[in-house]
């Protein structure tokens, strides 16, 4: 997805090496995809359209905090 848009960044994070970040996002199952620092998340290797829907939801709902 990052390849398709300059606005998208994709980072793969080795959860055990960065426990603080993983804890903050309550990573339980892997892979877990966190969108915009917690605005949305998806657990598991989900179909492409499912992830798109979650991104759409994450960027349209009011920000947390």
């Amino acid at each position: 997805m990052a390849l398709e848009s300059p606005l998208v960044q994709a980072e793969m994070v080795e959860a055990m090496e960065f426990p603080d970040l993983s804890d903050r996002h309550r990573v339980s199952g892997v892979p877990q995809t966190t969108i915009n620092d917690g605005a949305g998340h998806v657990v598991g290797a989900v179909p492409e359209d499912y992830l798109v829907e979650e991104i759409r939801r994450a960027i349209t709902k009011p920000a947390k905090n």
Partner: protein
Amino acid sequence: MEMAEKLLNEQIVEQIREVFTQLDQPVEVLFFGKKTDCDYCDDTLQLIQEIAAISDKLRLQQFDIEDDAVLAQQYNVDKVPGLVIAARDGDRIVDYGIRLAGIPSGHEFTSLIQDLLVVSSRDSGLSEETRQFLQDLEQPVLLQVFVTPT
């Protein structure tokens, strides 16, 4: 000094060489390490050096997140070891915002190889609908995929 033992055995190297026949356009890998407090920097650097040596379509540059802080910031690298998988277009490095944080072993090793292939192809392979959605984005989206090596 003794030569460091290879992380990838001959058999694995042959398999990667076979997969790398699919490499198309040049890929630039930027490694960011740190001199202290980085358990996996040395192994990650060695691993990516061994991988980059397999194909001349891959080029590796090595940086330090502290000494090269401006560059790290430019590529949004805030963790070590960090890898940026970018495209090389002549002398120009094209950053697509694809990064890995932590040592790419286990499942992540496969993802690393996959990232190299996708960036080399310059084609995401995504559906027309997804591409349209991504091209219509008006705000930044950061996707962080948490994985474990096993």
